[in-house]
């Protein structure tokens, strides 16, 4: 058998577990063999770990219109550097992505770049104004993978109900930024002892819980009528941040409601205590919560009540983030560090099972999106990540491909850094030290 690339001496890891050492032969965009073979180029991976490529159901790549913060070329390269082969971009751009033409333009541009594969989400309502539904059927044909008004909250319950029912009939999942606008008011951090003491407007956990409770009720109401190509997940709750929100999701899933949920790297590793510095770099929506919330979210991730990691990669310019805490925009750029961060903080430091974490970065997200799963076996699609489980390196935002070259984790010493990312059998990115050109 003749392939294009032979990666020798890797340890195989997918969501089912570790499968020992292998020599992986890749060609025609697929894994041709796990037992070696002839190839045009050969790489000795020296025992690094090979996994399916990571999939992010939630990133803000800012095109069109906000290229000063990020663009596809920087965001999708950043994704590759983070081990991601598949990225869903959010439609809260300028203007919002709410037409089939806009979706197609993004897909075409991303394809030309040859970085991570882009799956645009589109607005649930026209202009994300929360009033009139977008063209779900035509958007899906154009390539939209999800509908969402993320960036805003779905204040009109009736509109969300209509949107869910309609999107479901065309097999599209709807994702929601679940925060009650009235309860969160102008909150810029978690409401609690610290926000009271610092004199910062607080965003209470109740804002998330109340909205999730309402949205679950809407799913219960819509479900019996949801017809045709009913997706496995009808409503996907983005960036879960509270213990109470998790409890509601857990309960709904126990009932069998088709509800998914994601959690971000920052809500798993940072608490509101970080705001003691009064540094807007930690301003994010929903806000960083408490250690008790982190513990609950990790438990939820372990048991599967939370399907996946969504980065909510939300780049802004340094000048924007250096405004004061009231005016600085919400968001943290993190797609380049998500995997090593959680590998280090959860797997290495807390004993979280590695295959489970990988599942939440890969299969979990793909299931929510309705994408095919990737298994490390002969014939599988060769969209893969090679990572180094051992070497330690500090987070250095100056090296980010993302335009947002600052990070709340700057200086954190992490392991598990990706060293190569393959998309459909092609080496899309390698770390300089590995010395294999794309």
């Amino acid at each position, binding site marked *: 058998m003749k392939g294009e690339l032979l990666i020798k001496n890797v340890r195989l890891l997918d969501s089912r577990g570790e499968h020992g050492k292998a020599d992986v032969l890749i060609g025609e965009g697929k894994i041709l063999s796990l037992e070696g073979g002839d190839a045009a180029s050969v790489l000795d991976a020296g025992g690094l770990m090979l996994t399916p490529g990571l999939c992010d159901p939630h990133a803000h790549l800012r095109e069109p219109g906000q290229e000063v913060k990020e663009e596809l070329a920087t965001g999708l390269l950043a994704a590759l550097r983070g081990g991601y082969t598949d990225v869903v971009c959010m439609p809260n751009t300028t203007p919002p992505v709410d037409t089939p033409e806009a979706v197609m333009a993004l897909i075409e541009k991303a394809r030309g770049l040859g970085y991570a594969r882009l799956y645009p989400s589109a607005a649930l309502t026209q202009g994300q104004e929360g009033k009139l539904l977008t063209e779900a059927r035509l958007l899906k044909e154009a390539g939209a993978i999800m509908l969402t008004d993320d960036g805003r909250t779905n204040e009109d319950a009736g509109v969300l109900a209509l949107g869910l029912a309609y999107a479901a009939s065309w097999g599209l999942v709807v994702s929601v930024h679940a925060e009650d606008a009235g309860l969160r008011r102008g909150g810029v951090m978690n409401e609690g002892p610290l926000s009271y003491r*610092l004199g910062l407007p607080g965003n209470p956990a109740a804002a998330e819980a109340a909205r999730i409770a309402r949205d679950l009720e809407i799913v219960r109401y819509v479900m019996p009528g949801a017809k045709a190509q009913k997706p496995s997940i009808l409503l996907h709750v983005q960036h879960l941040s509270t213990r109470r929100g998790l409890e509601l999701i857990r309960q709904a899933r126990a009932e069998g409601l088709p509800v998914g949920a994601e959690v971000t790297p920052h809500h798993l590793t940072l608490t509101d205590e970080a705001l003691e510095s*009064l540094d807007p770099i930690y301003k994010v929506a929903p806000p960083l919560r408490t250690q008790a919330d982190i513990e609950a979210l990790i438990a939820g991730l372990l048991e599967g009540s939370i399907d996946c990691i969504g980065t909510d990669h939300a780049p802004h310019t340094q000048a924007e983030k250096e405004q*004061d*805490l009231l005016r600085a925009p919400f968001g943290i750029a993190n797609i380049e560090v998500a995997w090593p961060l959680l590998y280090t903080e959860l797997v290495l430091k807390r004993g979280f099972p590695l295959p489970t974490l990988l599942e939440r970065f890969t299969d979990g997200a793909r299931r929510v999106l309705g994408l095919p799963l990737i298994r490390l076996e002969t014939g599988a699609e060769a969209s893969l990540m090679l990572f180094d489980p051992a070497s330690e390196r500090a987070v250095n935002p100056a090296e980010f491909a993302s335009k947002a070259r600052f990070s709340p984790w700057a200086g954190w010493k992490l392991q598990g850094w990706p060293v190569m990312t393959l998309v459909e059998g092609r080496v899309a990115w390698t770390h300089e030290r590995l010395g294999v050109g794309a």
Partner: protein
Amino acid sequence: MGTGVMETHTHSAEQPKHLLDFQGWNRAHIESLFETAKMMQEVLSRPVKKVPALTGFTVATVFFEPSTRTRLSFELAARRMSADVLSFSGATSSMSKGESYKDTLLTLDAMGIDAYVIRVDAAGVPHQAARWLGKPIINAGDGWRAHPTQALLDAFSLLERLGSLEGRKIAIVGDILHSRVARSNAELLPMLGAEVWLCGPATLLPGELPRVRLTTDLREALHDADAVMALRLQKERMDRGLLPSEPEYIAGYQITHERLGWAKPEAPLLHPGPMNRDLELEGTLAESPRSLVERQVANGQAVRMAVLYHLLVGRKG
């Protein structure tokens, strides 16, 4: 002065570099600052109310949020110490053209500033400034968060009247949630031994604050109090639906002659100003013998001179 270097009676405790809030300040720091403030009171009692201590220093007052009184108080304090004063106002300058805080501050810094007095409507900007600039920062009020020199002059005025704050009950009444004055007093007064009660309508009270009591019951707050402070009620609270109306506030929380009777007989009354007469307090109370309002303003000068001295002098090398 026999050693040939001037004899130096120095402060025992290492002093904080900034006055952002009272994190990092302890009772010894405050007491030493108040000692200096007393000396400044003597300077202010002289025919020539000016000393050359800060000759050669330049103090920038950077007010991103307008506040005439606080600015005047700081600038006069700086001039009475012979510092040069550079006055920047966000409202009348490039801030309105979109220049960032950081760019503004770095531009000023290039002019050779030795200390910054910063007032801003958003919490945390003085903290950020402290990270960006290697100079002492004095917070002249940031959002709802802190207004440490106001709390210092309040405490100084209280000490002047009461002698000691040990075990004294101080009631602060009004819009606690949005009050940097309340927050700074809630940090400072307990450090000096006082028992602080914060009282206001439920919608204007934070959930909790360390080392103080919170209550919506005015009678409980004022009962046997050694001093009472009324806070300014911002009228925009009504617009945001946090208070039904002014009469509703007056009915529940206005400090009146009658209600002041719940406190100790001689308990002084404070107000950080500017005052809404007949809203947060009965109009004639401001001129009553119990009022410390004028002492607060006068002491503001001495306290701010002391703060400038403490943050600027002896920081070389």
